[in-house]
């Protein structure tokens, strides 16, 4: 009922672990599959290991979650070892996420993943928490998205998705640019830039001061982005952002998503949030007489 073919690869269900939540190790990725994911996305890897920002890096509130982890990761070399380990212990599709400070950096990392067991690559060019480090965020510039996509396309045969930011007013245009430059898919969206201030301390809570907002507050924003992108491109979309229920996931698919990224939901619904979401999807589909997800994909555009 939930089986989804994405760029020629079969997923048991369309729920994929979003990058940055859990997923630092092969074992953690496999556990997400055991807990109900149809596929997983690893934490974003960079050329060198990164410790990330000091704490507090994450705060959970009733309706939103905010983080500024700062892309901590063990680096591409050790990251590839975890991908290999994952493939030994789990057969569900995996997306390797990468980020770099330049188009050349993205292309080099993608090239390194060529022989890794990852099924797809995701270019994370939209993290809101490292702007100062990397200058102007790529995710707001058509030229930057184009250049990164083009260079990466020239250096890898693996299918890849470009992850965009909901902060970009022109997200559909950016998606179009990525498609034209050779991207196989679009991941929409990353977290939206935000802040939280502790009133008693009279200061921002996150060490990085600003962070990325996820959780329920992000959902309607992400949904609109996916809706707009679906009208602009033909390549498939991984709809991500604030999905915490089966109802949310089906709405994402009706907006046009092929896969649905889920991350912060583990904070709201526990480690097996993925299973809860797929069960709810099936229940609603049964109630509504929906047999396959293909029937309802993009149906909100009719």
């Amino acid at each position: 009922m939930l089986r989804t073919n994405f760029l020629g690869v079969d997923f048991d269900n369309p729920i994929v672990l979003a990058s940055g939540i859990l997923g630092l190790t092969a074992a953690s990725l496999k556990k997400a599959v055991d807990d109900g994911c149809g596929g997983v996305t690893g934490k974003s890897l960079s050329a060198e290991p990164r410790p990330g920002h000091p704490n507090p890096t994450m705060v959970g509130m009733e309706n939103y979650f905010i983080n500024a982890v700062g892309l901590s990761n063990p680096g591409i070399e050790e990251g590839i070892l975890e991908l290999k380990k994952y493939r030994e212990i789990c057969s569900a599709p995996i997306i390797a996420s990468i980020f770099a400070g330049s188009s050349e950096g993205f292309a080099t990392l993608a090239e390194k993943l060529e022989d890794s067991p990852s099924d797809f690559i995701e270019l994370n060019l939209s993290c809101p928490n490292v702007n100062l480090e990397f200058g102007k965020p790529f995710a707001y510039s058509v030229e930057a998205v184009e250049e990164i996509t083009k260079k990466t396309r020239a250096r890898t045969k693996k299918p890849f998705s470009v992850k965009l930011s909901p902060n970009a007013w022109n997200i559909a245009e950016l998606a179009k640019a990525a498609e034209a430059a050779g991207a196989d898919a679009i991941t929409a969206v990353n977290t939206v830039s935000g802040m939280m201030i502790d009133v008693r301390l009279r200061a921002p809570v996150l060490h990085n001061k600003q962070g990325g907002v996820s959780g329920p507050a992000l959902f309607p924003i992400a949904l609109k982005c996916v809706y707009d992108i679906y009208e602009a491109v033909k390549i498939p979309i991984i709809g991500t952002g604030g999905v915490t229920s089966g109802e949310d996931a089906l709405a994402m698919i009706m907006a046009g998503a092929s896969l649905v990224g889920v991350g912060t939901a583990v904070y709201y619904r526990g480690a097996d949030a993925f299973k809860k979401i797929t069960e709810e999807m099936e229940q609603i589909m049964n109630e509504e007489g929906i047999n396959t997800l293909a029937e309802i994909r993009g149906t909100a555009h009719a």
Partner: protein
Amino acid sequence: MSTFYFDHELKSAPGQYVMLWIPGIDQKPFSIADDDGASFGLTIFRRGALTEKLFEMGVGGRVGISGSYGLGFSINENTRYILVAGGYGAAPLAFLATKVLARKNNSVDFLIGARSADQLLYEEKLANISNLNLRVATDDGSRGTRGFVTEILENICKEIRASGEKKEILIATCGPEMMEKKVLDIANAYNLPCEISLERFMKCGVGVCGQCAVDPLGICVCQTGPVLKKEIVNRITEFGKYHRDKCGRKIFFNPH
């Protein structure tokens, strides 16, 4: 090393931890060393920027506390607790000892080890807990028995086996991982229940960031631990071998 007390109703259990935050510096997990309901204490070593700052602060100073987090040690009745502490592990185990001695028909053997007498932590505080059977081991014999604290544990386990003691036993340990590994091995060899406090690098404390996921189970010890039962730890193959740093790189333990 100092114990800092905070006037705050935490309602915590021994083995749980809080996140202590000093704005602009860092926020880290600390094991709870004391909690009488009205206030709680954290025993902290001066080590790194966060603790440096804390030691500079005086009475009335303000920090951010969130928690308590995680799962603590079991608090049973009619049980002989054998607590094995190394280093800072003495603090949460002393808290546990106080709690279990307040319950019906429990006894506590408190085993504590250090390299030498001057490195023995918490001894005075432990001496003040009544009905505590304190056993000390130092590597150089400058206090208590000469040798490792785990040798005392092994002797107690032998006595239990020889005497056919019927009372429920619970071994609980907190300290350096190589010591804990030895405690686990002994608990396995003598088929005795054991609970282990596992330390891994934690960021969020709520099972989201995945920093503290252990191999090969992939469970986050910030949430399913930090105190784990023997049966679980036996399945954590990285236990006693490696942990991960804040980047997520494997760091191997030095064999004792």
